[in-house]
């Protein structure tokens, strides 16, 4: 079960168009599927090292960190307190929000250069990308809306906006590209939005002040980190309701999945809480750096990466043993709120 679950966790990274996989070896159907996924991933990324794209909010920079050598490869100046991040479906671009500079910066990750900038009103913070269309959704922290941006060869253009609850924060899109989910921090709810009509179709009550929102690897469930009620809510997307909760440390912030387990950063406890997303039971805690915020799993599901805002570092966690295997220094105030591993 664990093995199957682990291979599932890497599925979101296999969304880019890929050639058909060659037939896998092995007996059962599950094993064949797993091998197929592995082969897909190998085919997708034969030479690229695993990188973390870090938004150093107080340092006004975006850093590209090589997780293998644990070195900062490139530092790209980005003014305006860069915070949120999402990558294009082909992982060649980073969309970075600037809540103080009021806009989005598009970074070409191949050339490590700023491609363009788009000014936006309000406080752009949460950001997500549609895995099918490549559309970019940016939440306005100070309002009740999500901006819709269309990718262009030069960068992005503003297409429109979608009404949400108050202080929209974390954003996720289902693997089929049809449904957008937004955590409404000040409304204690999640907006379920039909991408085609750009209309909210449902609002689901969750815990107090949901900030991060992450989908299960198969895209059927959404999980919110509820910063004031110190717990994580599980949502059945099809049923449109909360199905369970698990207690966390203080001020849970963002969630990631690896090896069939859920991981949430506890901003005030300086820990990551591991939980079972099926039973919503706590599995343990890992001590990380000061004020952990952004969290994500590597493609192979073998490492969970945490951005520690307070002490300017990344913690690398082994999701099986629940131990920190490495710490990497970053610029000032790393947040990496969103999908930040390439």
């Amino acid at each position: 079960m664990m093995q199957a679950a682990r291979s599932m966790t890497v599925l979101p990274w296999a969304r880019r168009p890929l050639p058909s996989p060659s037939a896998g070896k092995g007996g059962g159907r599950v094993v064949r599927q797993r091998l197929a996924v592995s082969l897909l991933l190998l085919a997708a990324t034969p030479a690229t090292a695993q990188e973390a794209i870090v938004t150093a909010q107080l340092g006004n920079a975006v850093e590209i960190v090589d997780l293998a050598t644990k070195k900062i490869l490139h530092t790209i100046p980005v003014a305006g307190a860069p915070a949120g991040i999402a990558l294009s479906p082909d992982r060649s671009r980073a969309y970075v929000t600037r809540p103080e500079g009021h806009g989005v910066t598009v970074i070409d990750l191949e050339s490590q250069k700023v491609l363009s900038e788009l000014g936006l009103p309000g406080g752009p913070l949460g950001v997500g990308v549609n895995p099918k269309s490549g559309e970019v959704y940016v939440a306005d922290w100070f309002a009740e809306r999500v901006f819709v941006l269309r990718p262009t060869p030069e960068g992005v253009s503003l297409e429109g906006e979608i009404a949400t609850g108050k202080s929209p924060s974390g954003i996720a899109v289902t693997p089929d590209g049809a449904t957008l989910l937004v955590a409404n921090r000040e409304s204690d709810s999640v907006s379920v939005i039909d991408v085609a009509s750009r209309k909210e179709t449902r609002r689901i009550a969750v815990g107090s002040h949901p900030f991060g929102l992450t989908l299960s690897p198969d895209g059927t469930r959404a999980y919110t980190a509820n910063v004031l009620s110190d717990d994580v809510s599980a949502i059945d997307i099809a049923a449109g309701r909360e199905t369970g909760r698990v207690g966390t440390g203080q001020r849970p912030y963002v969630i990631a999945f690896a090896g069939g387990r859920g991981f949430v950063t506890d901003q005030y406890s300086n820990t990551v809480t591991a939980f079972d997303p099926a039973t919503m039971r706590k599995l343990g805690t890992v001590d990380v750096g000061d004020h952990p915020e952004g969290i994500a799993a590597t493609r192979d599901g073998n490492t969970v990466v945490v951005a520690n805002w307070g002490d300017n570092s990344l913690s690398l966690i082994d999701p099986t043993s629940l131990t920190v295997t490495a710490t990497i220094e970053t610029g000032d105030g790393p947040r990496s709120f969103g999908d930040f591993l390439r």
Partner: protein
Amino acid sequence: MKFRTLAAVAALATVTFAAQAHGPTRQKVSESIEINAPADKVWAIVGNFQDGSWIPVVEKTEGKGGNEVKATRTLTLKGGATVEEELAKYDAEKKTFMYRITKVDVKTLPVNDYSSTVEVEGDGSKTKLTWKGAFYRGYMNNDPPPDLSDDAAKTAVSGLYKASLENVKTKAEKGS
């Protein structure tokens, strides 16, 4: 005397945006001072959560719960303003504690969601005292006025820390 005196706009901001989220960019400040006294002596000055007298603007400390986690205290400042705080972590062996402000007027200190850590690191007859804070600016909405900006918050906290650390240094180095 207050931590910091601000324009009338501050009061307005408190009323108007009290129910809203904090700003999008948390700030941090860290100040340290080297003291020519052993760590035990410095810890004796700063290490009791129920005694905030090492902070120069504090006139009175009232609280309950001693130095246990979730202990509370109310600092009354010279001039009458109050700050309510709660202890989040306390480690006498490592000589460090962390607490949060649970209630303060931005006219008193222009911050929101403030937490801070005091650390005492001994090295023989010398001690390094560090006071670190993490907080959001006083103005919760977009495009803050100058008096409630990120910079205003950092300046106020940094000034408070420096004055307090200097005060502890003077106290610790003076006595035997």
